[in-house]
């Protein structure tokens, strides 16, 4: 089950690496991608606050960024 899940997740990665020619945009097609809300960390302050909450309340951390130490809350 877990292995299958990992496979499903990495298939797009493999496609991404091997099929670059068919993916992506030209520089003049970045009008939407250039918007702040299309950035991968569109609200860094929210992310930092959320990370702190979930780090101290659950057994997982990191993934999107560093899971790190930094507080005595867990």
């Amino acid at each position, binding site marked *: 089950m*877990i292995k299958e*899940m*990992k496979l499903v*997740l*990495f298939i*797009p*990665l493999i496609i*991404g*690496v091997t099929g*670059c020619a068919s*993916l*992506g*945009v*030209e*520089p003049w*097609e*970045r*009008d*939407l*991608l250039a*918007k*702040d*809300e*299309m950035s*991968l960390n*569109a*609200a*860094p*302050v*929210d992310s*930092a*606050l959320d990370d*702190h*909450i*979930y780090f101290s*309340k*659950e*057994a*997982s*951390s*990191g*993934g*999107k*960024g*560093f*899971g*790190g*130490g*930094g*507080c*005595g*809350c*867990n």
Partner: protein
Amino acid sequence: MVARGLAVVDVVVINTMKNKTEKTNIKAALTIATAALLGTSNFTKAETTSIANVEENAWEFDSAFLFYSEADRVSAGEAIFNATKTFTDEEVLNLKLTVDALTGASANGGVAQPNVQTFTRPSGSGQYTIAAGDTPLDDTFHDTRVQLNGQWTQPIAPNYTASGGVHISKEYDYLSLGVNGNLAFDFDRKNSTFSAGFSYFQDKFTPEGGIPKAFSSMLIGDSSLPNWDDEFAKTRIGSEDTKTTTDILLGFTQVINRRMITQFNYSYSMVDGYLTDPFKIISVVGGFNSIDAGVAQDYIYESRPDSRIKQSIYAQSLYHFDKSVLDISYRYMWDDWQITSHTIDSRFRIPLGDAFGRESYIQPHFRFYQQSAAEFYKPFLIDGAALPTYASADYRIGEMTTFTVGLKYGLLVNNGHDLSFRLEYYRQTPTDAGFDEPGVLKGVDLYPTIDAIIAQVTYSF
């Protein structure tokens, strides 16, 4: 409880709405202050408060205040002040100050009982009692934390960007120092990016009352007796301990088309040192055949392994519809404590146009999280049975499902600044990972749900 939680609202930053042509005096003043603190040459120029000069040396500021409150348990307030300056050659300096304060009651690890229970405070001075049927909560938790982060990012060669940062965090009983570094490589017209990063943290923990001896019994009695301090000291092995955390993060980002971008990360994290929670205990209860079946006979301090290796994969996609933006991510984490977890996080940003006289948006948020228990998680131990090598009754490493629902509302206010509000409801539902409950434990709630409200205001200028 649920109804209260669902009535949530939320706040964040709308960078896209920024109007750089208008700057206010507060920004000029902060620019001067920041420049002065850093000792940069901007000071003299900014001091003249020429609006044009401030623009030329523009800093972006984000300020946020978050309130977190659990029903009948912990409440916390956290404030962030974030300053970012982009220099002409794409060098970016980011400085962040975080201050938080926490107070309230926290589960001590013991199980509820059909009778009143008495526990000793972590400091060793004084006791607290828990009513029959209630989950034992220690209400002595108070802490204030100050954290500073600095990050410098710059291009180092065509298509290569490097970043480095430092971190310091200080609490009453905790000190954390950290460094991090990251290198990113863009290719295929910058549609693809590989990145590799590391971070290292060195933490020192000096808990109130010292470090308890693993599995020693909590001393309970009259703390004013002359021999109390000596007896309490016998349950301690020192005043402080340390841990280190080393993280490696590999990432790949791919632009799919004009509307879609995806990211994949793999992370490997090694934590070594003191990973036990010195404030947590485990109830030792009478066995199935005992006349005291399920009745607490003793409370012993928990013990966890001194290392943990966590790994995770993370995938995220953003899709721009005609107007709205969907941001969805999934994380799978596994570690050598046999904990696995799934996290799905999604946000859907809907612009409202000028519907309320100002440019604004709403953003519903949904998060789902599920974890399995650590192999040494035990909600209680049986009296007379052999002690395991490690054991913890901390529900946070037990089997659990949580979800968060929230709403954020953001708007462009005067001078092109962004104001946002966020209100969320968070529920933790610990579940039974298959432990048979002897005697009286069948009649109490060993896995109580926890409800919390998260409220946040953010102002960016």
